[in-house]
């Protein structure tokens, strides 16, 4: 999976968690929390969906890496190698 697909994977999960959120104009560099109405349960859902959809494990000490799309990409790049984007 390339960087763009990793972003799409995260946005796809957020769309499923919060169908009412508009995710079309998210800035990749800014914190997701500052742009969307996400609470701590939503971040937990992202972690659980990453595990379910891609078999990727994010221990709770690494949750901070999910702050923005850019930081997600940097953190997940190695973990997502060889994985197919789930729509």
């Amino acid at each position, binding site marked *: 999976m390339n960087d763009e697909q990793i972003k799409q994977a995260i946005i796809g999960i957020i769309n499923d968690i919060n169908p009412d959120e508009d995710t079309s104009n998210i800035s990749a560099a800014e914190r997701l929390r500052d742009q969307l109405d996400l609470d701590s*349960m939503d971040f*937990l859902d992202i*972690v*659980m969906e990453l*595990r379910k959809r891609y078999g990727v494990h994010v221990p*709770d000490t690494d949750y901070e890496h999910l702050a923005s799309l850019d930081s997600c990409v940097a953190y997940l790049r190695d973990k997502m190698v060889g994985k197919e984007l789930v729509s």
Partner: protein
Amino acid sequence: MTTEQQTSGFNLKAEGKRVLQGSSGGRAEKKHNPVEKAKGEYDVIVIGAGLAGLTGANVMATQGYRVCLLEQHYNYGGMATWFRRPGGHIFDISLHGFPVGMKKSMRRYWSQEIADSIVPLESIKFDNPQFSFETQFTREDYTNKVVQAFNLERAHVERFYDHLRKMEYYNDDGQTIRQMFEQFFPGRNDVHRAFMEPITYANGSTLDEPAITYGIVFSNFMSKGVFTFSGGTDTLIMKMRKILQSNGVDMFSGAQVERVLVNKGRVAGVRVNGRDIKAKTVLSNANIKGTVLKLVGEDHLSGDFIQQAKDVRLSGSSCQVYIGIRQGEEIPFITDLLFCSTADHFTSEELCELRTKSRTFSFYYPKTRPHLKNAGFTIVSSNNARWQDWQGLSDEEYEHEKNALIERTVTHLEQYIPNVREKIDHLEASTPRTFNFYTQQSEGASFGTKFEGLDVSMKLSEHLPGMYHAGSVGIIMSGWLGTVNYGVITANKMAEYLHEAKVSHL
């Protein structure tokens, strides 16, 4: 035999109406072993089918794990429960009401269908010697009402909300709710009452709890109103059971877990109804104290941790009075939830006194179960209570106090529905002793534990790998929404543990 069994009876008549003296006692003799169809091994065994146990089981099953759910009672749901009585009555114990967040949690961890049945209560009323108003409990409407009722500056109330919203679990500064209220609304016992009473009814907390617990719980509520599940508790739990079944969870009721099995410092399974079942992880939805001190036991945990668990205080218990309106009779729409008191001033202590003058009435109209043709009217009164006040009573005193509670409650209700007494054909009371009997919660705890219980619950797996707890703890994780979400949080930790265990074995 417990006292509850001894004192329950169905034959007491009063004023020509049937008055039941507490819920039916006794458990039927088991004809077969309730867990005989269980497999020999699971990834996850869940002890207790309260909302945290049910949700934890479902999250684990949807992640592909083999899950077994064991419940000691014959019914699932824990405190999210109901019971039927002659006359077509269905009484809900704790259906009204929860924050809007429940809608999202049900959609995420259960189903869209369940989420779609979550509807707002139309009206909530406060009535006591200090003030009286009606609200939808949305942020805007409630703010309007308190600004008006107490002549407060709107911006100041908003500042209070903002302050509450910014409070975080990890930044507890040790302030109590009482101190926080005095800081924002000094000397305003009436304002303190308006802000505190509903929360005390919701989770048993007093003015002496950490302010952080109030900040989190009140912020959850102070949003879009108070919600309920249209269809009744029985419908909700039935839908959950179907989902668990379709996700492959093995479920057994009447299953009494004796203890958690430990091998080489890790969880190895449980002993239930005399049978050992293997499991890599155990999620206990029993009371945290019972989990640590009885199910796991002192042999497998450090002395310090055992002491920490012993020091956890329970968050109190409840009394309820179940009032059935005769089929064919109607009562007018008063409100859905009525917080009422005849006590002149507000104190946390008064709310849980044996003969408190304060109670909340949940009114269940036919709209509660729109799918039923002959859905009737029931009213459930709840008040906070202390185990110590009820536990020591002789059988005779116990009957007397229960009757007095029923009489006070009906008299109070007559203030709002003058001729209601004639329409009642079922009256029954439950006490901390009743809750203790049915849920096996020590001291009949109906709200879990005080704040310190959360730390013990969250750290259990650090002390015994594979052993987890979710349920009503720490005030923050109580109520329907708190326990559901805590079940998810814990399930996520369990999935990580199972993954690591798998990796290290390869």
